[in-house]
Structure formats: structure tokens, C-alpha cells
């Protein structure tokens, strides 16, 4: 580890270093290098590498379309059902992958953490970046579906980055909590797959939020991914899809809270990672 400035560095117990955020900036390339490492290694170790990021969401989309669209005949908001599903599949897969990668990231890099100094936030951060690359890759499927069904999105598509950012915040916030807890209590290894599976059932991935009865909507929006998914649909599908703004704002506030508390808890426990990992 290196740091350039000539000023004196003070190390003391419980000192929240003013240095920290400066260091985070100084080590910014490490975000890139760790993410790059994970991606390169994945493509070296798997035979079809990149295709995994396509096959999984594609097959899930097919199953959901058949089950919810064809068999259960749920309403499709006037767009082709596969596109309805895939517009939700994208943020959901991103969230689910980012969450699992993030929560395992510290344990997976235990050796780095006990032997070198760098701001620890980089490790879960770059795990989310890896999932983001997968997200971009599986975005290709959405483009293909749009071409296939001759579906042209309207102006709202330009707001998509905003919703991606919210998904980022939700994944990172929850991921930071789980990553930090995982270092201390290894039980969380078993909780994460459960959260991911359970979350899929209670999030509007295979169907539209509009089928949820009105009296349940408020409670339903307490799931931060509901806001993210509805936002994605609003931006991508355009036209008739309406966003329930008050509930969306609620989701947004929850994501902000999750993110802020995640960073807070991570920073608080970070200093003991090297001792217990």
C-alpha cells in the first residue's frame, strides 16, 4: 500500500480516518482491477463464459412467460409478455447476482484483507461492478426481444440510467450489510440464497404490479425491488404503463436508507475484518 502525501498519518484506536474517502479515490483503479480479475478468471474457467450471462435470464424469461402469461393468463399491460417479463428480469437478476457476489466478496478475498491495506469498500464494490457487466450483457436479450416484436420504446427510456442507479443502491446497500455480517457470522452464507429465492417470489418479476390488490400495495412497496422493477417497466415499456409515484418514492426512500445504513455498518465493522476473517 502506498500513499503519497507528505502530511503526517496518525494511527489510533477508533479513529475514523479522514483519510478514508481520499484513499478510496486514490485506490479507484482497484475497483476496476478486482472486477476485471473476476471476469477474466470466470471466462478462463468456464467453457462458454459470456453465454452464461445470456442463458440463465433467457430461460427464466421463457418459463415465466409460459407460466404467468400463457397458463395463468395474467394481464400484460398491452406489451408482449416476454418483454414485460424481461424488463423486470434485468434489474432482478442484477440485484440477485450483486447481492450474492457482494455478500461473499469479503470472505472470498480474505487473504487480501488480512495482508494488505486498502479501503475495504472496494471489495464489495467491485463485486457489484462484475454483476453490472453481466447486466449489460443480458441487456442484449432485451434488445433482441424488442427487435423481434418490433417494439419501439418512447422517450422514457432515457431515464433508465436513473433506475439502474437505484438498483445499484439497493444491491450495494443490502450487499454491504450481508458482506460485513458474513465476516462475523458465517451463518449468513446460508441466508443469502434464501433471500434471493424468496425475493423472487415477492417481487413483480413474472407479472405486473398492477395485479396486486390495492389494499396490499403499500405493504408491497416496502420491498425496495418493487420500486426498482416498476421503474424499469415504466422506462422501458413506455406508453400505458403508469408508475404509482407515492409508492415509488417510498421505495426510493427505503433504498436510500438501506444504502446509507449499509455503508455505515460496513465502515463501523470494517476495522475488525482483518482480525476475525
Amino acid at each position, binding site marked *: *500500500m*502506498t*500513499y*503519497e502525501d*507528505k502530511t*503526517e*498519518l*496518525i*494511527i*489510533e*484506536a*477508533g*479513529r475514523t480516518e479522514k483519510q478514508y474517502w481520499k484513499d478510496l479515490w*486514490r*485506490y479507484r*483503479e*482497484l475497483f476496476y*482491477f478486482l472486477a*476485471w*480479475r473476476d471476469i*477474466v*478468471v470466470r471466462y*478462463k*474457467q468456464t467453457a462458454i463464459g459470456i453465454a452464461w450471462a445470456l442463458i440463465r435470464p433467457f430461460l427464466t424469461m421463457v418459463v415465466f412467460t409460459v407460466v404467468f402469461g400463457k397458463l395463468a393468463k395474467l394481464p400484460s399491460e398491452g406489451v408482449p409478455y416476454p418483454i414485460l417479463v424481461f424488463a423486470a428480469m434485468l434489474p432482478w437478476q442484477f440485484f440477485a447476482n450483486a447481492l450474492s457476489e457482494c455478500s461473499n466478496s469479503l470472505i472470498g478475498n480474505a*487473504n*487480501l*484483507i*488480512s*495482508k*494488505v*491495506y*486498502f479501503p475495504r469498500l472496494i471489495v464489495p464494490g467491485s463485486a457489484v461492478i462484475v454483476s453490472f457487466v453481466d447486466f449489460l450483457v443480458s441487456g442484449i436479450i432485451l434488445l433482441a426481444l424488442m427487435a423481434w416484436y418490433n417494439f419501439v420504446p418512447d422517450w422514457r427510456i432515457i431515464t433508465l440510467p436513473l433506475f439502474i442507479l437505484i438498483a445499484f443502491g439497493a444491491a450495494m446497500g443490502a450487499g454491504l450489510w450481508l458482506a460485513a455480517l458474513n*465476516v*462475523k*457470522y*458465517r*451463518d449468513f452464507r446460508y441466508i443469502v440464497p434464501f433471500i434471493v429465492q424468496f425475493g423472487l417470489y415477492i417481487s413483480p418479476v413474472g407479472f405486473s404490479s398492477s395485479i396486486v390488490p390495492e389494499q396490499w400495495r403499500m405493504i408491497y412497496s416496502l420491498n425496495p425491488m418493487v420500486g426498482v422493477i416498476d421503474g424499469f417497466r415504466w422506462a422501458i415499456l413506455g406508453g400505458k404503463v403508469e408508475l404509482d409515484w407515492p409508492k415509488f418514492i417510498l421505495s426510493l426512500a427505503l433504498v436510500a436508507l438501506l444504502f446509507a445504513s449499509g455503508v455505515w455498518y460496513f465502515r463501523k465493522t470494517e*476495522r*475488525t475484518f*482483518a*482480525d*476475525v*476473517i
Partner: protein
Amino acid sequence: MSDTVILVENLGKKYVIGHQQRLPYNTMRESMVRGAKSFGRNLLKPFGQKVPNPAYEEFWALKDVSFEIKQGDRVGIIGRNGAGKSTVLKILSRITEPTTGRISIKGRVASLLEVGTGFHPELTGRENIYLNGAILGMSRTEIKKKFDEIVAFAEVEKFLDTPVKRYSSGMYVRLAFAVAAHLEPEILLVDEVLAVGDVGFQKKCIGKMEDVGRDGRTVLFVSHSMNTMTSLCNRGILLESGTLCSDTSAEEASRIYLNKAFSVARGTPLSQRRDRSGSGKVRAYSFRILNEEGREEVSLESGKDYYFEIGYHNHTGIIIKDVVVSLDIYDERDIIVFLLRTNFTNSNLELKADRGQIVCRIKNLPLTNGLYRFSIFISDADREILDYIEDAASVSIEAGDFFGTGSPGLPSHCKILAKAEWSTS
């Protein structure tokens, strides 16, 4: 003072160690049980003292350590296993936080606690140089600039595009050290990384570190080898179970260390020694030297036959097969004179499920008179080190009659005795 680069005041580091399980981390169930228990205790005795939890023990790895390091100092940090050397470096490099005390550091610090941290076996040498450089805090442009120099230093030109999992361990170490050596810090912290690698490369690394020292930069160097330490450093800091024992010249510190090593080997019974490493599944608890009649001896004679007997406890409760046991014998200058190791003679052992004795017989003891120290090493094939105690015992050997001629050899020149036949033609 202006030329002080590191000032350490009353440094302390506390670890909490669990006894019931060997893993340092908790499970939630356990925390909940613990929480409930202490809640119950507090209900019963609301005004009583907090009862310490027997399963968790506080342990001070460093206590009240203070020192000052000036620009250009080359400081060797020495001490027994578990003395806290690595902990000092970890705190200085901000990997872990101190529990008490204050440190101020002026200048760019680079630390090398382990060779090849962050190397990924699937990546090529070239890729790993970039990755490792970034982990150590170099920017991409900086690495690019030094790339050729790093490759030349590591002598791996031909293998740059081979995954490092195909490297020999020597190449691996060379590459890893090369990256770290090109950080150009003002303060370099190095922990025993040279213990690996061949002699030629060790020399090169030491040369590189001497360069760093010559440029007026500061080096803190943890070592077990007194020879390397004294040749490289001008100051020595000796730590003893977490406290600063002496802070003097390198030679003096090394002398004190060796003296203490002999007295430790003499003084503390093996079963009470805590300065050991390894997983602890097996622990050596006694060491005796028996003569041919089976009687214990404290002082040996060259040329006689002896039994070295190690009493062990096997805590796993199952029989362990294919166990490697090694007795490493050191002379007064801290040089290993020889190793008695089961795998040299294909005689790896099987340990009983509870306890027993390991016996090693040596015939015609080929050592001249002097003081020797024994280290005991027990491992489960090459899977895991079970127990390792340095300076487990100290033995004095008296001149006996190895050659059958009454000659004791020449102890001041050479410690090992060997019989040879001479003739002319």
C-alpha cells in the same frame, strides 16, 4: 524532531480468542446463546461484577510498545513465534487497528507481509503484475513504466503469458517480490518473505532492500534469521510476548535473542509453552533424551547412541497416518546443523488416537561439543502443520570419542563430525 519518520507510543493490541472452537469467527447461534446467558446472569446479579466468559479470553498480542524510527534506519524486528512482530507491521500498515496507543508516520509506506498476496493462479504473469501492483497501491501508469524492470528483476520473460499456476514456486516468489520491490516507498515494511526462494534470489532481494536503505529510505524488517538481520540492519528491536524487550544495535539485539533462546529452551516445560504454531490438533508436551540404557540424559557425548523421545497428545481422537516429524538442530550461531526428518528415510509415522511417544534413534551422534537447540515440527503429511515449537529444548554436548582416537574435532570451525578414510597413492 524532524527526522523521525515513525513514532510509536504505548502501542497495545488486544485479540479475543475463543477456546471452544478453533475458528476465530462466531456463529449467530453462539452469539445469541451468549447474549441470553449474560442477560440471565445480569438478571440474577444485577449489581454484581461482569463475569468473564470462560470460552473467550482476551489476549494482548502487544502491550505498551513504544519506539521511534529515524529516517534511513534499517531496523530488524526479532522475537520468538507469537511475540507480536507481524502484529506491529500490520498495525503500521493499517491492516488492523491498535487497541491502545498512538502512531504517527511521515512518508509513503509500502508493506510486504506475504509474497504474492492477491496473485491469482489462473491469470498470466503479465496480468498478475498489473493486478498485484494495483493491490499494492500502484497506478496503472506507474506499473506500465516499471513493467520491464519488474520482469527483468524476476527473470520470467519467457513465461509472461503463462498462468502463474504453472510457475515453479521459485518463479512465483521472484515475480511477487519483484512487484513489491518496485514500489519505491519511503518506508518499507517487510515480514519474513525471504524465507522462501533460493539463495541466489534471497541475495538479490537483500541487495534490493539494501538499495532502499542506501537511498536514505527506511526499512523495517522482520526476520528469524539472525544472520540476515545483522547483515541488513543497523538497529534491532527485540519483542518478547508482546512487550519491547530491547531496542539497540542489530548485533546486540541478536546476541540477546540467542541468549534468551537458550534459556527458554532450558527453562519452560514444553507442556506450558505457548509460543508455538500449527493447528494444534497434535501437541508435543514433553521432550527427553535417553541413553542406550533408557535413562534420561541432560548432557550428551559425541559419538554415542541416543533416543530422542517426544511425548504427544492427539486432540483429534482419531489415528493420524503419514505424519512427518522433524527435529531441527541449531548451533550457537543460530545455524541449522542438521535435520532429523521422517520423510527423508520414508519413515513417516502413525500417531495414536489419544497420546503416545515418538522416538527417534540416532547412532554415533556426529556433533562436536557446544550448545544446541532443538525445534520440534509435526505435520500431517504436507497438508497441515500440527505443531511447531522453536527452541523446544537446549542440549549441551560434551566432547566424546566420535573418531575412536580421542580427538574432539575442531568445534570452533565445524560442528559436524564425519569419519573419513585417507590414503595416498
